[in-house]
């Protein structure tokens, strides 16, 4: 078949000559379709093959099909949905509060010198204390209920949001402020049309760190003193030696993380379509 194709005489009108000198590409080139899925699928394949050939001991890591069966059972009993809902509510609440606080603080400290003097120092100090080290104090202050959990997550979220938004805001070129001054816009319009969109790349970068941070904090607060949520389910399974349930929990965490990161990337692509970068 291919030989016939190759020897068939070319119709000059159908295929105009296309001789070009093309430079070697130095950028990463065009986007691969579903490129983001390649790595995870490869890992999944490794797991399946490893379990099927017996290279992975089921006591170390349950087989994928056992995990799927366990997940099915957990869904049937309603436990998985219940735990997932509890965990998701915590993560989303903490994320929302943290993002709002980080953004507002970054804008105040980025736009006013007085605000910067008051806000920037404390945030930098907070940054050097690992979030998880604060948990004992937070438990004393807020108890072991939902309040403490959400606040811990929010604390983990607001720092990266603040740092990156503040940085993005400060790197907006002064010439745009000058333009806004000559155009006679108000301070509010300046924030809306110049500051926020200009700081958006920084904010979104911060958001990606924040999402990861929220998940990390979620895992930790759910494994101490928790009576519900995915983390509680995992802790319980650990006590009874149920590897498969633990893996189901981890998979749920992974899915949460992937979905969150994917959403941020999607927002990034929509919100930053004005940029021309290597990302394409």
């Amino acid at each position, binding site marked *: 078949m291919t030989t016939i194709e190759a020897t068939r005489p070319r119709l000059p009108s159908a295929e105009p000559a296309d001789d070009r000198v093309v430079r070697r590409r130095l950028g990463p080139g065009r986007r691969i379709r579903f490129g983001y899925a390649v790595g995870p699928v490869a890992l999944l394949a490794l797991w399946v093959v490893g379990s099927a050939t017996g290279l992975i001991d089921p006591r170390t890591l349950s087989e994928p099909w056992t995990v799927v069966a366990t997940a099915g059972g957990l869904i049937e009993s309603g436990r998985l949905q219940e735990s997932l809902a509890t965990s998701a509510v915590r993560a989303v609440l903490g994320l929302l509060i943290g993002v709002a606080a980080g953004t507002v603080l970054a804008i105040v400290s980025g736009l006013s010198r007085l605000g910067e003097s008051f806000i920037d120092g404390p945030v930098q100090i907070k940054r050097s204390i690992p979030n998880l080290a604060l948990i004992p104090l937070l438990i004393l202050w807020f108890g072991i209920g939902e309040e403490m959990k959400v606040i811990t997550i929010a604390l983990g979220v607001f720092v990266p949001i603040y740092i990156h938004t503040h940085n993005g805001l400060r790197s907006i070129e002064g*010439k*745009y402020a*000058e*333009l*806004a*001054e*000559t*155009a*006679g*816009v108000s301070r509010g*319009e300046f924030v809306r*049309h*110049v500051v926020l*969109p*200009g700081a*958006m790349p920084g904010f979104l970068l911060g958001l990606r760190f924040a999402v990861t941070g929220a998940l990390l904090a979620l895992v930790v607060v759910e494994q101490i003193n928790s009576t519900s949520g995915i983390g509680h389910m995992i802790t319980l399974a650990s006590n009874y030696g149920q590897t498969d349930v633990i893996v189901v929990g981890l998979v749920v965490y992974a899915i949460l993380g992937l979905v969150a990161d994917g959403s941020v990337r999607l927002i990034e692509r929509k919100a930053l*379509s*004005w*940029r*021309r970068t290597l990302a394409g």
Partner: protein
Amino acid sequence: MATHPGRLTDRTAAVRVRGLHRSFSRAGGVLNGLDLDIAPGEFVALIGRSGSGKSTLLRALAGLDRDVAGHGAVDVPDKVSVVFQDSRLLPWKRVLDNVTFGLRDKDAAQRGQVALAEVGLEGREKAWPHELSGGEQQRAALARSLVRDPELLLADEPFGALDALTRIRMHVLLRKLCEAHQPAVLLVTHDVDEAIVLADRVIVLDDGVVARDLRVDLDRRSQADPEFAALRAQLLAELGVEDDSAPAPRHAHTRYDRKAAS
């Protein structure tokens, strides 16, 4: 449209500057008691050596020099538009939104479209600034400044970054726009030919004051005109440049063409 300390009460002048001093260091001033009047609708070109203080003067008129030491009186109209050397379009706003940036009227979008059509950018309203060529970006910047109906248009080497052909097109366009909108104009340029081609008056800045103030009374603004060449030689001499091409040679690359811009 920026806020300024002074407001003109008498409308015989669009710009009135008296005894303007500005300095960036103790060593010496950049502007040393400069006086300048610009009549409504008058097109003034400002030339001077690099570092002579042209941008400093323009920024003083634009109200952008609050941190610069100095004193003197500056009176400008309410509605001032500024065109910078870079087009200064907000990269995150589409072209039309850039043009109408800061306009609060209900018909802003419509007026923006008209302004874009005037500069030959109809159909590009939805483009991102990085999708425009350098000349198109500068035309969008012109549309943004003119949509505000300025009484005074300040431009700091607006065509400095453009290639020679595009610059000629922009000259034609700017004259056309200024005839239509009739703002007073102060155009900073380092290009003597550009100054003569465009302006009613050319002023030379030196030692922080207006060293020369020449009216351009040419019937045809063509480099082939001996009067044009004489004026050019005079201005170049003022800037300390010998012009040995004085009696009207014709360089293809500087020929001025009055065909409409596109």
